[in-house]
């Protein structure tokens, strides 16, 4: 039975691209762009940078697509490349992961651009406040919890893929996600009823 590309697995799409059907890479992009951009946005805290880096990551993945081993999940590979690229960029730009605000020379705070889908790119106050609170709560998490929370909630990776990506036992992933969520919930309690 012939399976349409709409139902094709990631691995099928990669195989099609490697056979010379370049357009199938567009299907992979459509499939992952939302998760990838949002995952990178939470790491870089800037929507433009997240888009730019997501593009770099996808181009990089395309260039070495022949090295992809279909025995493993494409998403695991993609997010590993994305995480490493984001860490490199954070190091390069010396972003401070602790604070949501960046002090300018006069000592005044400048908000990072935060998403507010309901009303334009930088949206209304409540959205901005909520986005800021989420980012602040995520940034306050120890890295070992933060990376798992981001992979699970923004990368939407299943437990097994996170375990493989981080080379951790599955039980550790479950445990850290549970603890990370508890910490986040405490900080975001005021916004849960929105």
């Amino acid at each position, binding site marked *: 039975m012939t399976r349409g590309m709409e139902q094709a697995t990631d691995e099928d799409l990669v195989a099609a691209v490697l056979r010379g059907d370049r357009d199938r890479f567009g299907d992979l992009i*459509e499939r992952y762009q939302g998760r990838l951009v949002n995952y990178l946005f939470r790491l870089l805290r800037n929507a433009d940078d997240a888009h730019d880096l*997501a593009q770099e990551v996808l181009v990089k993945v*395309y260039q070495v697509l022949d*090295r992809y081993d279909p025995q*493993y999940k494409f998403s695991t590979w993609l997010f590993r490349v994305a995480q490493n690229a984001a860490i490199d960029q954070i190091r390069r730009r010396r972003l401070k992961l602790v604070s949501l605000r960046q002090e300018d020379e006069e000592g005044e705070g400048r908000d990072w651009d935060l998403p507010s889908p309901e009303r334009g790119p930088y949206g209304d106050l409540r959205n901005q406040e909520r986005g800021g609170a989420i980012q602040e709560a995520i940034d306050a998490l120890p890295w070992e919890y933060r990376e798992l929370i981001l992979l699970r909630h923004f990368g939407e990776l299943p437990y097994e893929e996170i375990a493989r990506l981080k080379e951790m036992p599955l039980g550790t992933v479950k445990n850290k996600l549970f603890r990370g969520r508890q910490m986040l919930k405490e900080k975001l309690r005021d916004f849960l009823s929105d």
Partner: protein
Amino acid sequence: MNRPDHSTFQEWLNLDADGRLAPEERARLEQHLAGCEECRLEREELAAFQGLFERSAVPVRSDFADSVMAALPHAGWEGRSPRTWQFPVAVAAMLMLVAGFLIAGSTSGAAPSGLAALDAMGGMVRAAALAGAGLLGASWKGIGLIVEDVISSPVSLGAFGFLVLCLNLLLVSLVRRRKPAAAAASLARGGRETDGGR
């Protein structure tokens, strides 16, 4: 089976939110929830928590996919992809076949047959293989003559040995220098990056 404590139910609620709870545990959780207001509240909070993340998602630019596709360079593997090779390989095979027919036709004087064409092609391949083998043999012979020349004199043998020793030392020092740097880089980067998911 032991009766799960309250913290276990809270862990189960988290697993359930991710669709990771086994049916049997899920049934026990539902039973517990019927009589535990705190856990019911916890479940509501978890749902709200996920909703909060979804509402704060950054919208992806509408032209993002197109701009990525436009930015894709020519990857090294593209030259090796079957579709890229299909056409040139087919043309080469056809040319060889035509050449085979022509050679067979010109040598036999009679109308070329398929068998004669294949025989002619085989002859061409044999000739190419012989030429390659001859070249390889000649290069090895050349190397042999140089080595023979070097070891014939004690001075040149000593100089050659010294050169080999220096090259080895250089190689060892380079490997030593690269090893710690590579290990540190790998540790800092959290593992392999573009290793195909392994």
